[in-house]
């Protein structure tokens, strides 16, 4: 059942639940962070509208900097600004930033240890019709591999706003991952959020499996948990919005409690959230696992939902993965 202390939206499983893209939360978070701290500046590579950086530009035009379609400069200009003392957020699509400018981020932001916030919008399969070129599915993996980098993939618009505001204060290089599509707003203003700490959204009395998810697919995981409950399978759903630093203790605890883990992400299975969880468990508490995510493949054009169906990232696929992992559990 839903963990009451997570204070999720009471309409969570209703048909008319509000749908908002989590990138909107980024835009709102930028404005809120900008109000709190005048050191916050926002740079955009010709994508202010779709990254929602436009909200910041409207409120603080003097602190908004347009750099043109130049993602390498986007990262390196921001590195210089952060080195001086600003708190720059850089906005583009994840395929280009951190996709194209990964080395610049590595050298001038992460190794340099300056607090630039990289916002990768339109990440994941659900960019849809734009096709494989724009469906960034490797960003969690490449950013997680980078020392000094914090990696956060918020589950909805409200969490995106909280993550943006917290990133403005953390003093560290930080990657924030957002999606294009409207997705259910299933948390609330009161849902706890702290970078680096998981939240258990679904907690049954005697859970047999832990579903560890990030991004908007956390909602699919909750839908799966609800269906599984009807079938008599009790579970945990853990919102693991921070892929790095991973909340290792909570993940080990969940594995010990359940003895089976399914990870869910809109990223390559290779090196993503699933990889991160597997690394921790292999060392501390080897546990049977199943992985929902992109199976070493590029995407293609299609409607977002069609793509999630085709690449098996829907709640029914999570249910199947749960059944598989339960079958592998040693009794």
């Amino acid at each position, binding site marked *: 059942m839903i963990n009451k202390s997570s204070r999720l939206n009471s309409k969570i499983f209703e048909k008319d639940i509000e749908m908002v893209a989590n990138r909107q939360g980024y835009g709102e978070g930028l404005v809120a962070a900008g109000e709190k701290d005048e050191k916050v*500046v926002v740079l955009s590579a010709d994508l202010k509208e779709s990254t929602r950086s436009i909200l910041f530009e409207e409120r603080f035009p*003097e*602190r908004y*900097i347009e*750099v*043109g379609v*130049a993602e*390498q*400069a986007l990262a*390196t*200009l*921001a*590195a*210089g*600004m952060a*080195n*001086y*003392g*600003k708190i*720059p957020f850089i906005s583009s699509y994840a395929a280009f930033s951190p996709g194209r400018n990964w*080395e*610049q981020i590595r*050298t*001038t932001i992460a*190794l*340099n*240890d300056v607090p630039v916030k990289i916002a990768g919008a339109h990440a994941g399969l659900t960019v849809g019709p734009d096709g494989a070129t724009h469906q960034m599915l490797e960003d969690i993996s490449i950013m997680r591999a980078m020392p000094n980098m914090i990696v956060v993939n918020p589950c909805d618009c409200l969490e995106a706003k909280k993550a943006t505001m917290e990133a403005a204060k953390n003093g560290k290089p930080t990657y924030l991952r957002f999606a294009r599509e409207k997705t259910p707003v299933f948390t609330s203003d009161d849902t706890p959020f702290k970078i680096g700490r998981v939240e258990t959204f679904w907690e049954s009395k005697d859970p047999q499996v832990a579903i560890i998810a990030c991004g908007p697919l956390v909602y699919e995981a909750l839908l799966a948990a609800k269906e599984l409950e009807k079938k008599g399978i009790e579970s945990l759903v853990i919102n693991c919005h921070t892929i790095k630093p991973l909340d290792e203790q909570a993940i080990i605890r969940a594995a010990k409690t359940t003895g089976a883990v399914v990870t869910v992400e809109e990223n390559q299975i290779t090196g993503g959230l699933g990889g991160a969880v597997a690394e921790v468990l292999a060392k501390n508490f080897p546990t049977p696992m199943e992985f929902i995510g992109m199976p070493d493949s590029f995407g293609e054009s299609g409607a977002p939902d069609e793509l999630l169906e085709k690449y098996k990232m829907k709640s029914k696929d999570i249910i199947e993965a749960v059944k598989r992992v339960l079958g592998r559990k040693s009794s």
Partner: protein
Amino acid sequence: MTIEELEKKANEIRKDIIKMLLAAGSGHSAGPLGMADVFTALYFEILNIDPKKPDWPERDRLILSSGHIAPVLYATMAHRGFFPISKLKTLRKLGSGLQGHPERTKLIGIETTSGPLGSGLAQAAGYAYAARMDGARFRVFCLTSDAEHQEGNHWEAVAFAGKYNLSNLTCIVDRNNIQISGHTEDIMPLEPLEDKYKAFNWHVIGIDGHNMEEIIDAVNQARAVYEKPTVIIAHTIPGKGVDFMEYDFKWHGAVPGAADIPGEPPKAEQAKIALAQLRTLGGKIKSEHE
């Protein structure tokens, strides 16, 4: 300092570069030797800095983009008093602040981390833009190699600085015409470099990068330009001061004493000959001995 004192200081720095590289056993020789005059002029005459207060907020900022010429940066900083000259021999050694390429978090006084080419000017431009937002008075200098003008990231920054009229930014190009595998105009031509910068709304000055007066005058001229950024294209001789290294791209990524190179002095003699030549400062100093 007088011009002559600056020239002597640059020569001291060149000698230390040879000694550092000999001790390190790897690194780059031609670029550091070629830029010793520019670095000396900057650190001893031009930059508003205080080695005792490396974090002083009003200091001028020097962003080294071509991180592979770090030995000249380190040697100049040591001579200027940022750290003891004795530390220079730790270049590229385990635990040293003098990393093979400069790292901001490893050595006090380093303004940014660099090495991968083409990313310095953008950092300097971002720095200058942010400083101007706050009305800061200091100037931002960026030192780039010529070959890193083959990088797209660099031109993105040239466009940005031109668009936003960053007059508090000065870029100094080490135009030595060589890169690791040949001459720039053979590998990928850069000319007409001055025209390219002009087309991007930059003020352009070309100088002899070994003439102290020209270096200092050019920077003063850049200070006076208030409506656009300035680029100083410093024509330098790679390997300057050591005859067998001068103009020779083989010494871009090689160091004295590490290997026998066809057509060059034997490795055991390379550093000795280089230091002997540098002692006389191209014949200007007759009586100095080590």
